């Protein structure tokens, strides 16, 4: 068991109004799962992602990751988890606009304090893995949406994380590019057994996952479909998952 959540809550105070973003979540996640978290806006799915990704701590409850309770960890421990065990992909790609593709991937390795040489070679390798070796010296404004998201994926992958978190990864992409990107993620999951936790409102994307959960008003809802169905069972589109040399 990778994750074990017991009665996790998250409470925000927004303009003196109390917001229960998460109102008691019980959940377990195994290694190697491709989990899709669905729900409408304000359902708490982004908050749940933050909790799982050690970006924030729950207000109450226990959140065990590999046996450690993230709810009780200090700021620096959480930071270390993020830098060594997790990778993130964002809807808006979130690349540093002033740095090249290569340098953007390298930013993930800055907290590792490895030599500049090693950092460079690892980053180059990761870019190659997503098929963007020839775009290494371009800055984000010179790259297409799909290319930017690939760079982001390379950045997430470069440190071989235990879990990759994606927040609406295809939200800013057109359909075709979406297929490419999601296909890439799927390939990682299939071939490397990468644990993926994806927040999405796109049913098609969610359909590629091995497991789907639904959130509504901070609570888990009963899934409309069988939640442990493997990805194979879902009808795949004509195209193969994106394969890049």
């Amino acid at each position, binding site marked *: 068991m990778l994750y074990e959540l017991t009665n996790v809550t998250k409470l925000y105070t927004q303009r003196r109004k109390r917001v229960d973003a998460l109102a008691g979540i019980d959940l377990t996640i195994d290694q190697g799962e491709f989990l899709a978290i669905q729900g409408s806006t304000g359902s708490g799915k*982004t908050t749940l*992602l*933050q909790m799982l*990704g050690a*970006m*924030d701590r729950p207000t109450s409850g226990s959140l065990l990751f590999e046996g450690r309770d993230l709810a009780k960890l200090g700021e*620096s421990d959480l*930071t*270390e988890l*993020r*830098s*060594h065990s997790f990778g*993130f992909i*964002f*809807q*808006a790609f*979130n690349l*540093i*606009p*002033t*740095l090249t593709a290569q*340098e953007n991937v*390298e*930013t*993930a390795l*800055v*907290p590792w304090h490895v030599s500049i040489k090693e950092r460079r070679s690892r980053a180059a390798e990761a870019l190659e893995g997503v098929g963007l070796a020839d775009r290494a010296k371009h800055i984000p404004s010179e790259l297409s949406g799909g290319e930017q998201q690939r760079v982001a994926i390379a*950045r997430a992958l470069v440190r071989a994380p235990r879990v990759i978190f994606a*927040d609406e990864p295809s939200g800013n992409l057109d359909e075709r590019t979406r297929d490419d990107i999601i296909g890439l993620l799927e390939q990682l999951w299939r071939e490397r057994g990468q644990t993926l936790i994806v927040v999405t409102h796109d049913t098609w994307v969610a359909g590629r996952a091995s497991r789907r959960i639904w959130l509504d008003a901070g609570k888990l809802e009963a899934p409309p479909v069988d939640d442990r169905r493997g990805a194979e069972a879902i009808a795949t589109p004509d195209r193969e998952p994106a394969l890049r040399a």
Partner: protein
Amino acid sequence: MFFTYIYRELRRRHRQALLTALGLAVGVASVVAVTAYAGGVGDAQDEVLQSLYGVGTDITVSQTQKLGEGQGGPQSFGMRPPDSGSANAAGSAKIDRSVVTSSPGQKSIPQTKVTTISGLDGVKASTGSLSLTSLHVTGKFDQTQGGVSSGAVSGMPTGGQSSGGSLQMSGIDISSFSLAGVDVSNLKLGPLSAGQITSGRSFASDETDAKVALVTKAYAKQNGLAVGDSVKVKSTKFKVVGIVILPSGSTSSDVYVPLARAQKVSDNKNAVNQIYVQADSADSISAVKKEIKQVMPKATVTTSSDLASQVSGSLSSASSLADRLGRWLAVAALVAAFAVASLLSVSAVSRRVREFGTLKALGWKSRRIVGQVLGESVVTGLAGGVIGVALGIAGARLITALSPDLKATMGSSVPLPPGAPAGAGGMMEALGGAAQTVTVRLAAPISLNLVLLAVGLALAGGLLAGAFGGWHAARLRPADALRRVD
């Protein structure tokens, strides 16, 4: 990564960065220009004071004459016509008399005091000088009828006066010149310290008792003297070994001789009437003044700062201007620059919330991100410092080019202005009492220290601004990366 990131970010917002740097530059430049100007005024004041009583002198000591005391009053020559028995009743007698006395207003001080003062704490060196006036009267007594009377001739060159109507003086010629005895073993301190030899040579340090003299160029010209000629003081002949010029406005005597000779010629054994003291450092001057006062309670001890308060004229106005207005302006400009830099730094961070949030999500520690912000700010500050120094130097040069020659007037021949420090009065009498005006050119010097100060200020500004931005950045959360809108 650190420097790459800084450089790229500054390039991206180069306009704001430039604005910040320029703002800091203006603040720094005004500090540089004002400090240079104030320094120039200070130098000018020193120049004035130096020309008034010599390079290296920090304190002068003298003893002033109180009114009514005997010595120094109208001179009496005690001239008597020859005994009636020895001259013809209707004959005439020549007059040729010479008197050397201390300058008016000066009491003599035992020379041992010079040595005492040398030994005081904080005193680097001290010498004494004796300033004198030499009067020479020539003429004839004509006896017309019986009746003898003696005449006392006043020291004023007003011609003769007779009593009883029977004796007359004619063809009176009175000449005088000022004479100073100096310590030839230490010419770097004292009345000749600012002197320059234009012809011949200066005194040798072993000529303490020699009959040698230096004359000022003006006096030499007036009297047609050249090196090798001789000057007669009373009955002693002194050989002129050199012609000297002293800075304009400084008090000078016409003739300079070794101290021992001056003492002999004026019957002032082992006496001086002016002591020049050089302190170890500018900071010890007031302490030395106190010590001298203890050793010589009745003496008038004047320091250069006492005199500085006496300097009137455009120089002192320039100095007050530099002090008050200039400093406030510079401080205001600098504060404004710091404020602008801080605001821009904070705003820059606000526009990078998602960027910094992402880095935090990636595991970057807060302090690393704060370091980036500080780094950007410091680089901007450095740029501002460099530009500011360049602007400040240009500004100082401009001031130098534009400013008129400044005049400084010291003292007055009649009453001192009310509230003048007592010492200045004695000082002024020691200096001969006349009002002196010195003209100085104002320069605005830039020293290495000033440049370092300027760059330091700019760096501090950069750090301060960066701290504001950095604090803002440190408060960002990784979750900010997930914000939909920036």
